[in-house]
């Protein structure tokens, strides 16, 4: 039985509105709390990582569940929202945490694997987000678009390693997400269309 409550395009809009509201709520909550910078930094970092991982889960899960397959069109939105969360994360770091003090930022980055992984992830995500639209697909052609977007595997792996290193002692959450990612990567390695 197929229940179609809303057409897919409406569901896409709903998803966009929900993720935008969630981000606004995160910003509001951080503004109300005692530490805007670290609250906003961890909110956007954590949920950005979740969104990116979910976008990666679409393909393997769609092979198993039809309802996931029917929503495959939402994958791009979720990935792009993951990038938007990541962008806020980076802006918080540059503008609020370091108040545009570039020298301090360079000192902080120098040889620090934790931050380098975060930067690597973001740099890789920029071209992917920029081409995650009809224009990008048309411009690149399906083959090279697909080839370019295989970079997500490295980007999301860097995100998870960064997430793991951000914890002082309770690493359970990034560890679980990391296990899911490893499972997806291994599945991906073995399967193709």
């Amino acid at each position: 039985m197929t229940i179609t409550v809303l057409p897919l395009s409406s569901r896409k809009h709903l998803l966009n509105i929900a993720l935008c509201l969630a981000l606004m709520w995160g910003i509001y909550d951080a503004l109300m709390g005692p530490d805007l910078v670290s609250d906003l930094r961890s909110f956007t970092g954590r949920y950005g990582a979740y969104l990116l991982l979910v976008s990666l889960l679409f393909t393997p899960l769609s092979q198993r569940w039809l309802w996931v397959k029917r929503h495959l069109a939402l994958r791009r939105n979720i990935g792009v929202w993951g990038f938007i969360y990541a962008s806020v994360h980076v802006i918080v770091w540059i503008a609020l945490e370091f108040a545009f003090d570039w020298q301090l930022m360079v000192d902080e980055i120098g040889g620090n694997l934790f931050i380098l992984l975060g930067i690597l992830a973001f740099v890789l995500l920029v071209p992917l987000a920029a081409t995650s639209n009809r224009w990008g697909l048309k411009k690149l052609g399906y083959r090279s678009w697909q080839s370019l977007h295989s970079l997500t595997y490295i980007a999301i792996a860097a995100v998870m390693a960064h997430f793991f290193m951000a914890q002082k002692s309770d690493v359970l959450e990034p560890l679980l997400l990391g296990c899911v990612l490893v499972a997806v990567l291994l599945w991906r390695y073995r399967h193709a269309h």
Partner: protein
Amino acid sequence: MLIKSSEITSEMVFNKRRRLIAAGLAVLALPAVDKGYALLLQKQEQAKQPFPPLASMPELIPEVLEPTPLNIITNYNNYYEFGYGKDDPSKATKSLITSPWTVDIGGVGADKPGLYDIADIKGEYAIENHVYRFRCVEAWSMVIPWNGIKLADIIRAAQPNSKAKFVRFTTLNDAQQMPNAGWSGGAYVEGLTIAEAMNPLTLMATGIYDKTLEQQNGAPIRLVVPWKYGFKSIKSIVKIELVEHMPQNTWWKQNDREYGFYANVNPRFDHPRWTQATERVIGQLGRKPTLLFNGYGDQVAHLYPDPGNRLYFY
């Protein structure tokens, strides 16, 4: 199932994708490689490493202290026994029973051990007010107007003998009062040398802003050592022992690569994962430079005769 030929992943793309997936798996392993490499290095460098002598460090003039608002001090806390998040301790049920509360003062170094009621301790000594910088090892800071008693007074009352070389502190560990009591596998433990404990800056705090200490800030009585990273300032103390040997504190036990016994604030000695040169002042934007010994060098630098020894700074 019918698949359009344009949707079939070409072999070239597929092979490239496999390489990228393998690279992704390698990236995931990087934190472990980093840790292993650091452990290897640690074996070689251990205690002594070339380290700039303290005298060569630029003099930074400590600024006038402006206390952090009370609502920030009571809502932004590291108190893992009540949860890992910064707001967990303040949001947790106020389940800590702080009255009656006794502090057991003893150990081989105490000639006059005893069990003291918190009310007696507070009544016995004059409560002093001290506005101190508070610098967390996580590179954030606050300024806190403490009310408390000099630890030296409490130790003197226990009549320390020649065996009293270190002081070992223990936090209450009660799963019925603390939802995350088991996080470190036992009670939270901290330690000081006897000289550090007797320093007039070292405080046993019972209040902030002339208000009784709240649960999340370490009620009813906690240590304050302003020239050390915040984790040294152990909360909700039930036991103080004067001991002969250096006690192993909880964070040292948890992660000996990143945390040790002395943990004196030093902007020139970075944490393995972040810089200690600057700090985020909670409630403000941007960062400010961190001061050597958190700005209390005049009072405490003499406690560390070999300033080139990195053991003092983590």
